[in-house]
């Protein structure tokens, strides 16, 4: 009986969706209409912000406040996970002998770790020129730390300085926003000179904000992974 009722409800719901969406112009070309924001970003985004990657110019300048909200959400999630995973029984973990990884695995991890960090740094420093940005580069750096946690267990990562880096990057992000409010007239305004597009030093505050976001996301996610690995069931 329940199956019949649920099937009937599903059919009614899908019919309603079909009738509702029949008239909607899904997949039509919205970009080419003159009054839409997409056309504006594509036409004038590079000129006004100096960033060759239009997605970055939208994410960091036009919707910079939105990005600040995203970073804040990630920060609150990391705090929540830390509060759930926190345990005082730190000494117990050290008594248990963990089998250490083989020499080949450890050497491979130590060899790959700087290369992955270098790639992540490249992704967020070139965020205003090529695809990628602070979030993507930060996650790549966090995956390098994950490799280190899995491969070389005896290598200790200074969590205190990671937390300091995370807080400093957040303060820099908000500080740049307030500086834009002071010198540019609105929060997160691009108050530095734009420079030549397609050059590394272009885009005003965009590279600085993306470097701050990259450090913040990388430190935060590495902290989350470290908290999960060190927690005993």
């Amino acid at each position, binding site marked *: 009986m329940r199956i019949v009722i649920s099937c009937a409800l599903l059919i009614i719901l899908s019919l309603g969706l079909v009738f509702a969406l029949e008239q909607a112009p899904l997949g039509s070309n919205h970009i080419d209409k003159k009054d839409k924001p997409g056309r504006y970003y594509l036409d004038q985004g590079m000129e006004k912000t100096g960033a060759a*990657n239009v*997605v*970055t110019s939208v994410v960091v300048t036009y919707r910079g406040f939105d990005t600040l909200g995203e970073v804040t959400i990630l920060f609150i999630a990391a705090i929540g996970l830390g509060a759930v995973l926190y345990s005082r029984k730190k000494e117990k973990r050290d008594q248990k002998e963990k089998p250490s990884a083989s020499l080949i695995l450890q050497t491979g991890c130590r060899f790959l770790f700087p290369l992955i960090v270098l790639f992540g740094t490249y*992704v967020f420093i070139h965020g205003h020129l090529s*695809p*990628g*940005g602070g*979030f*993507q580069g930060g*996650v*790549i750096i*966090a*995956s390098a730390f*994950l490799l280190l946690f899995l491969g070389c267990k005896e290598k200790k990562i200074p969590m205190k300085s990671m937390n300091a880096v995370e807080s400093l990057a957040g303060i820099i992000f908000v500080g740049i926003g307030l500086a834009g409010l002071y010198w540019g007239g609105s929060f997160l305004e691009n108050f530095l000179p734009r420079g030549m597009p397609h050059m590394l030093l272009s885009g005003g505050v965009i590279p600085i904000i993306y470097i701050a976001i990259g450090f913040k996301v990388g430190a935060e*996610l590495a902290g*989350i*992974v470290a908290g*999960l*690995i060190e*927690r*005993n*069931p």
Partner: protein
Amino acid sequence: MEESLKQILELSLTLLMLGGAVCACVFKDLLNAVIAGAFVSLMAAILFYVLQAPDVAMAEASIGAALTTAIFVIAIKKTKRFEEE
């Protein structure tokens, strides 16, 4: 010709994503379910790349396919591997 090939690619990627999502729901072994979820993320990343959104594709591949899977695998290793009835 090229347009229809692109449509076939997009359709097959979408169907693969649907199959992976159904597998992730059905599997009783949670490790397999997590791998199926990572497969869905990977196909989504390729689909974003085909649809000319490389920024989102990078985010999806690095967060969805790599880091989330690793976090789930660590969590399964610390708890139970099989779903109970």
